[in-house]
């Protein structure tokens, strides 16, 4: 479904992503791991169009998307969350998700229908799904960190994506919040058949959840394989141990 081929990206002299390769099949739960600074976030930004690759290509459903702006990529069916809580702080939690649903339904430019009556069912369902129903009327900026991160995922769900890209969904979370978020990610993959690509720097988190793992080191793909193979790979161990 998603294929990343030899993607490269440099910032001035620094090569953030050197040679990244990745495949995600339909219905798979794929993780990208690597030490801090391995280029995971840059890779995700290249996939969802926040950045354009210097070299290499990204294909989604056999169509090249590497040159498209983010909103077109989103329309093709890829939604994403960000590593730092990237929400609409002055809007209510409900409105945060509703805006995304409205965009998905191509209703963002309607001028004279009250928004209150549109996309309400869908928004409620998502709130229910991620467990934010009781906070629907709170201003998003006033939420606790963990809830903001959950809302982050909920906004992405509003786009009803085929592929959900999550950039370190558990960053900065407590142990319980991490467990809850992972349970949510798993449930989305299992019960709703979503294809999910996410990244993590904590290896243990990943081995329990992912079906396929891509390991990155200094911007380069070391390998992509099943968790067992990755765990036993000498090269992967070297990368992690080498970092100290």
């Amino acid at each position, binding site marked *: 479904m998603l294929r990343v081929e030899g993607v490269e990206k440099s910032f001035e002299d620094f090569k953030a992503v050197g040679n990244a390769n990745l495949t995600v099949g339909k219905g798979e739960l794929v993780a990208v791991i690597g030490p801090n600074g391995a280029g995971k976030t840059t890779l995700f930004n290249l996939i969802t169009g926040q950045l354009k690759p210097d070299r290499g290509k990204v294909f989604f459903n056999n169509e090249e998307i590497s040159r498209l702006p983010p909103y077109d990529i*989103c329309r093709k069916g890829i939604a994403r969350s960000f590593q730092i809580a990237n929400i609409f702080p002055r809007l209510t939690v409900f409105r945060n998700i509703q805006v995304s649903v*409205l965009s998905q339904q191509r209703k963002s430019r309607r001028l004279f229908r009250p928004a209150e009556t549109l996309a309400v069912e869908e928004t409620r369902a998502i709130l229910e799904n991620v467990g934010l129903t009781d906070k629907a009327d709170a201003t998003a900026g006033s939420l*606790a960190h963990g809830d903001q991160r959950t809302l982050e995922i909920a906004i992405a769900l509003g786009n009803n994506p085929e592929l959900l890209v999550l950039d370190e969904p558990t960053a900065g979370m407590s142990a319980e919040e991490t467990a809850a978020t992972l349970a949510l990610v798993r449930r989305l993959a299992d019960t709703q058949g979503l294809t999910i690509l996410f990244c993590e720097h904590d290896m243990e988190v990943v081995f329990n959840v992912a079906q396929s793992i891509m390991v990155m080191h200094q911007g380069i793909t070391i390998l992509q394989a099943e968790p067992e193979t990755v765990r036993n790979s000498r090269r992967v161990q070297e990368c992690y141990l080498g970092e100290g």
Partner: protein
Amino acid sequence: MVLKNSINLKSSILAAALVLILLVLPPFLPRFYVYIFAVIFMTALLAMSLNMVVGHGGLFQFHHGAFYGVGAYTVALMLTKTSLPMWTGFVAAPLMAALVGLLIGLFCVRLTRLYFGMLQISLGSLVWAIAFRWYSLTGGDDGIHGIPIPSLIASSKGAYYFSLILLTICLIIMYLIYKSPFGATLQAIRDNPERCEAIGINVRRHQLLAIVIATFFAGIAGVLFVVVEGSVFPDLLFWVFSLEIFIMCLLGGWFTFAGPILGAAIMVSLRTFVGAYTEYWTLILGIILIFLIFFLPEGVWGFFMEKFGSPQKRMAEEDHK
């Protein structure tokens, strides 16, 4: 939800009552005050139109006065230089303002934040330069005077009612837009444009549409200016005046819907009443602004909304602290 609806109902009743009072007020007012009220109405419409892009859209629309001026000049020129029926001028003004808004907006939305604002000041100043320099058409520095206003709305009471009614209609339309999916999306863009792109929203196109709508309403405010004052002059398009409109939004509360009306009323009153005593009335304004930044960062209206507004939202927020 029930609570929220009852608040909406309450504020619509309050608004309707206010309009009713304003409708019956003129016979009891001295003529000068009727005039001042009309000035407040047109300025309020101008500030409200700016706030659609500044407060709700998060755009640094630094030269809104240019579009206001284009509207005013369009109607003035059509009434003095052509023999077309009067109403065509009234219709052409907002359209012309929106067209100039579209042209300038096309360039500006490619930039963000301060760069957007700086480019708009430069492009808007070009429009000002045309009005200021093209003597044969615009009368240059002198402007255009003695514009033949239809007799029905030429008197101070006529102008009062005309601006009040137009303001009310425009406010209703603006409120609908504010509450529409487009309004919601625009506020989301204000909060976080990067995220909006990631949820499939073409940010620039939405911003451009917002600018076109806002400049259209600025053009209507320009019509009101001509009706109330009977003249136009290039100062309307000067960037310093645009700054004043910006301040009205901040003063009233730019994250609220109706705040700029209050901001406009405060500014017009200051200019009129303090300005009568000293030409340094902006000094008082400066002091007020300093206090505003320290004590009412959400603006006057924003402050009162926070104190007495929607209790549900407040509770939800306090719950969380």
